[in-house]
């Protein structure tokens, strides 16, 4: 028996095939760090409207090599360009780093649920991250600063391996010079003239000026770091439903059809990558789920 067709689900024709990639052209490349680079993308011709929610990701395809999920890291108000910051770790990201201005990159998205932009009004906002984890949070910082008067204190806690590994240095300098955003940096290993904090980023939570009863915390980093971050936030008295974390899983489709990103009953590509901690704490604490 044939399936029932409704106009919304009528496959070929009316709905674009979500598996098809759209080639975009690299307009500019920023070599952020030794292994990290930002690609600024635009369509080869015509208009662009890359609206997205901070925290969402795209599937990026390197011609003939493969496709990987990468968060959108640009300013959501600048809808004419698409910005992705990627760290080279393996096959696809290595090939991506070799691309030049003028080359094409395939894009599908934006996918997933982003940071809780609708929950932060009148709240203090704590952004806690390390390394490349700053990339998925940068759109959120832009978003907050564009509407600065709507929020209480904004506290950014950022950790890097060494002072040389600090991402978005220029942005951080700009943000630190503002009186309405507090940025605290720390490094695992001090080098050269570093006179700032040394130690893990989660240890900054204890001394940060925010109101635990009226804040939203957004955490992005390796799972082990997020575990400690949650513990520190809980110690400060932040309730579980005020903590948001961004999860990473293997992803082959980005749209709930390949199965790979399953995390318990959820699909990270659709139900995440950003989760409210209260919703997944039972799953999050289980090993090899």
């Amino acid at each position, binding site marked *: 028996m044939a399936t029932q067709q409704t106009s919304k689900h009528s496959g070929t024709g009316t709905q674009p095939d979500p598996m098809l990639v759209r*080639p975009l052209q690299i307009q500019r490349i920023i070599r952020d760090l030794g292994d990290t680079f930002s690609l600024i993308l635009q369509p080869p011709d015509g208009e662009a409207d890359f609206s997205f929610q901070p925290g969402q990701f795209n599937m990026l395809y390197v011609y003939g090599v493969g496709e990987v999920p990468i968060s959108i890291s640009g300013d959501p108000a600048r809808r004419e360009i698409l910005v992705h910051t990627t760290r080279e770790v393996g096959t696809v990201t290595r090939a991506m780093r070799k691309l030049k201005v003028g080359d094409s990159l395939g894009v599908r998205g934006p996918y997933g649920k982003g940071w809780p932009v609708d929950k932060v009004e009148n709240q203090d906002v704590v952004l806690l991250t390390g390394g490349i984890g700053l990339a998925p949070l940068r759109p959120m910082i832009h978003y907050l600063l564009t509407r600065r008067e709507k929020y209480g204190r904004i506290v950014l806690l950022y950790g890097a391996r060494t002072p040389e590994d600090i991402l978005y240095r220029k942005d951080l300098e700009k943000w630190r010079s503002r009186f309405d955003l507090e940025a605290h940096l720390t490094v695992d290993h001090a080098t050269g003239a570093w006179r700032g904090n040394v130690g893990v980023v989660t240890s900054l939570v204890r001394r940060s000026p925010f109101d635990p009863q009226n804040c939203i915390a957004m955490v992005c980093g390796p799972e082990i770091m997020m575990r400690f971050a949650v513990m520190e936030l809980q110690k400060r008295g932040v309730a579980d439903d005020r903590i948001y974390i961004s999860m990473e899983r293997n992803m082959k489709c980005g749209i709930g059809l390949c199965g790979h990103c399953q995390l318990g009953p959820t699909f990270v590509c659709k139900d995440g990558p950003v989760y409210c901690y209260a919703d997944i704490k039972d799953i999050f604490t289980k090993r090899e789920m």
Partner: protein
Amino acid sequence: MTEITLPDKHVVVLERKNFQSLLDALSESGYELLGPTVRDSAIVYERIHAVDEFPVGWVDECEPGKYRLVKDKKKTLFGYTIGSQSWRRFLHPPTNKLWEATRDGNGFKVIQPEPDQIKRALIGVRSCELAALAIHDKVFSQGQYIDNSYQERRRNVFVVAVNCVRPGGTCFCASMKTGPKATSGFDLALTEMCVSNRHYFIVEPGSKAGKKLVDKLPVKQPKESEIKAAQKELNRAAAGMTRTIDSEHIGKLLNEKFDDPHWEAIAERCLACGNCTMVCPTCFCTNMQDSTDLTGQHAQRQRRWDSCFTVDYSYIYGGSIRNSVTSRYRQWMMHKLVHWQEQFGMSGCVGCGRCITWCPVGIDITEEARQLTVTE
């Protein structure tokens, strides 16, 4: 258990000697026929043309880790219970080209393949397999994103279901409430009756297309005794199943057993071969494979079936999420019986029993579920 009955209207009788007319009518309507046949000592679903390609008189014997075909005295067409592989490979092929791309200056152009417009008639779909089809409809064409490739193939399908009068050795559809009689999702449902010197089919149309097809067949009205005899067989089949899963409570019960030591005991036997996921009619996981030809001028993306039993399946930079076999077996079983419910509002297991039959070490999902949830 509720009594199984056949509807008293629209049901007709097709004699075995006229069975080819059903195949011909489907062919004339433009359908490619896919049905059961014997290959490599197993029942498989393949392209067929004529009734003599059916597994005439062959019966399958299924046990945990064992499968055997034996000849029966009766010359049934559907005397076996179930194909070794499910129908899903026709609608969600094991390898499937999603698109191609060609170089274009510095960039590339993406070319969508021609839509698949083949009309397929699936002949001999069991009730549990209908349930599996309904599950894939939900997964691939009723969510936020529609799988075009599935949808294209699915919309042109004609389903000839066959009710089960002989449950296989590993079946448990009755307890999963998916069989043994087909209740929806078919165009025609057959009950094969092979008694003393009579061999005929009770034919139940389940759709307009099914009714239209019946009009082309040399059928007659059934006698009351014929209907009664068929009903008796169906009820006997339902009662004959020995394996069960408490489908109503299993999700909740199993969900509390994440840390149970019994998972380790299963993992000691499990080879993580992935057979169970390959024969499962509802598994849908895939991997993507991107490649280029030697010139680099042409690229393509292939989608291939994947299995959560592989280590790579959950790989992220730094290592896999599910390294132990324990965690991978648990993912499989919890996905089928627990998480599927939350994801799609239905069970991911339909009770076909294939994973039990084709497990090289005979791991039995019904038995493991029982062990995990038994309360002393």
